[in-house]
């Protein structure tokens, strides 16, 4: 805000300086014109006076006045002087101004309100200075008036500039304060609140809109996090409850050795289940939050990773079939190299492939690989149950499971985990699906370039 004020004051100063210099320029040029014009008129009268005084007769005095308007307080004078410059004869000239006169040519000067025009005239053995003096009515009256007028308009102008600038500043800042007040009201407990966009216009409308969109994202991620915690605790609670239940039950009375063994086996199974879940959770958290720390990426062949991932999937469940289409493999094997961590990529791909197999009645996943200019495309397709269209936007939320997956076991971690891994590799994962027909997952990864 302080910077804003500085800019405003600088702008006001510039405007004021401009106005002042404009006024000064007008005054200067009008004065200049008034002076030079008046001196010209004096010069004419001086020449006429000299003609009359030196060559004419004294009685001829009045003829020039018939044609030329007499100036205010017009006086004519003639001064005779010797070679040293001392006055010999003086008629009507104030001797105190003698120094100001050029004794060898013409002079124009001003003393108080009186203007003088003099010139040297020579006759054999004699030097005369003939001159005319008069008061400049235009200078004494009109210019003074103009000066006052300009001064008043200057003051009014400056006042106007300052008032208008302050008003504009206020009208700019007021809505921003409005936005600030509205934003202050929004906290974690009322994230549903939004700014009133229709209240603002122009760029502030855009600002409010941007802010609201940011709030939408914040609210969504807030919700996701809340859901994540509740889902996670629920998921972790289930095996814990069963462990406690089995242990309680077996402790409630004396049991045979076999029964204890059975109970312990169940407890171990549940604990293993719990471990799997926490490991998956840990992996998800690590892949989700370690985006900034650059992992030790190396160039790896993506076709090799796909084949390894398929081996892994088949090892988990031998009913799973994977059909691979490598018909679009590029001639140049360099195009198949991506920069990444092989175990992570393998984990991501095997997760998606095993999902594709799991949710298809024929337990078959179709995998294809191709390379375009700057990256590779992996398509993993199934002919399974698909994902309901309205649920497609939630599939990347951890622990989210689509409404049609009740009959399949799973935690809802595989896809978010895969997506995190692909994102770590600067890649892109997208899912398209038709309910009841099948799903296609498309992974795009940038190719390894030795320069970067």
């Amino acid at each position: 805000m302080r910077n804003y004020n500085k800019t405003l004051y600088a702008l006001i100063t510039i405007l004021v300086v401009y106005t002042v210099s404009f006024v000064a320029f007008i005054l200067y040029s009008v004065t200049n014109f008034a002076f030079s014009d008046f001196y010209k008129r004096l010069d004419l009268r001086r020449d006429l006076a000299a003609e009359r005084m030196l060559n004419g007769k004294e009685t001829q005095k009045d003829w020039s006045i018939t044609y030329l308007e007499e100036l205010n307080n017009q006086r004519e004078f003639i001064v005779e002087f010797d070679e040293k410059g001392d006055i010999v004869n003086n008629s009507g000239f104030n001797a105190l101004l003698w120094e100001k006169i050029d004794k060898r040519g013409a002079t124009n000067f001003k003393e108080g309100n009186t203007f003088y025009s003099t010139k040297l005239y020579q006759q054999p053995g004699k030097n005369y200075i003939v001159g005319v003096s008069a008061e400049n009515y235009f200078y004494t009256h009109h210019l003074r008036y103009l000066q006052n007028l300009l001064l008043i308009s200057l003051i009014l102008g400056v006042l106007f500039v300052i008032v208008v600038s302050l008003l504009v500043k206020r009208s700019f800042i007021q809505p921003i304060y409005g936005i600030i007040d509205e934003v202050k009201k929004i906290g974690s407990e009322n994230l549903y609140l939004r700014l009133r966009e229709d209240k603002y216009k122009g760029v502030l409308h855009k600002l409010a809109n941007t802010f609201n969109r940011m709030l939408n994202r914040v609210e969504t991620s807030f919700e996701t996090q809340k859901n994540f915690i509740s889902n996670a605790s629920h998921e972790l609670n289930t095996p814990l409850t069963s462990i406690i239940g089995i242990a309680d039950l077996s402790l409630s009375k004396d049991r045979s050795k076999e029964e204890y063994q059975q109970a312990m086996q169940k407890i171990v199974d549940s604990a293993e289940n719990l471990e799997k879940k926490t490991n998956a959770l840990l992996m998800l958290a690590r892949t989700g939050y370690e985006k900034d720390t650059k992992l030790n990426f190396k160039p790896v062949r993506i076709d090799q990773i796909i084949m390894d991932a398929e081996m892994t999937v088949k090892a988990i469940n031998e009913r799973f079939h994977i059909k691979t289409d490598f018909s679009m493999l590029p001639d140049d094997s360099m195009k198949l190299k991506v920069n990444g961590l092989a175990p992570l990529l393998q984990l991501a791909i095997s997760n998606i492939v095993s999902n594709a197999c799991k949710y298809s009645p024929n337990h078959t996943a179709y995998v294809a690989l191709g390379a375009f200019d700057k990256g590779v495309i992996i398509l993993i397709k199934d002919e399974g149950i698909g994902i309901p269209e309205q649920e497609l936007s939630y599939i990347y939320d951890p622990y989210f499971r689509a409404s049609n997956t009740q009959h399949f076991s799973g935690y809802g971690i595989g896809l978010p985990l895969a997506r995190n891994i692909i994102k770590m590799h600067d890649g892109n994962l997208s899912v398209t699906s038709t309910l009841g027909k099948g799903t296609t997952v498309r992974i795009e990864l940038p190719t390894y370039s030795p320069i970067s």
Partner: protein
Amino acid sequence: MIQRVLVPTDFTVNSLRIVLEYLENNNDEQVELVLVYGYKLGESISMLLGFTLDDHLAEMQNDDFLKGCEIIKSRFKDKVVEMYADCMISKNTRYVRNYLKGRQFTQIVLPDAFEFQNVEHTFDVVELLRTQPLPLPQVIPVAMGEDEMSRHDTLDSFFFRKKWRFSYE
């Protein structure tokens, strides 16, 4: 000698299957592929003055289509010398004759039973070329066959075609 081949297209990834069928079933000659589609320019003065081929083609080709083209180029790196799009702007017989002659096509690929996407102002190049009374360059028919898999992703049709050539289980 590099063959210049006219391949009809509608700028969908699906139509790139024609290119694939052609490339896979023909001998190892080097080819320059010109993906051609039909666009009725109309008679208005604004179209005549405001139509720019490059801008129009850039508008027609979406990301997936371009990626598909790039995949084909990297797959058949030694075979495909060049691959670019072009359009025919009239069904007029003389225009077609001049177009084929001017571009110096040596082969024309005509697929059987392929449904092109019918968008406003477009026309079917395959049908147009089939019905031409003109002597055409060498016509290469390709059999598209039925594709039985359902499609979700736009690149699906491009990859999972008929029978997998490389598959292991």
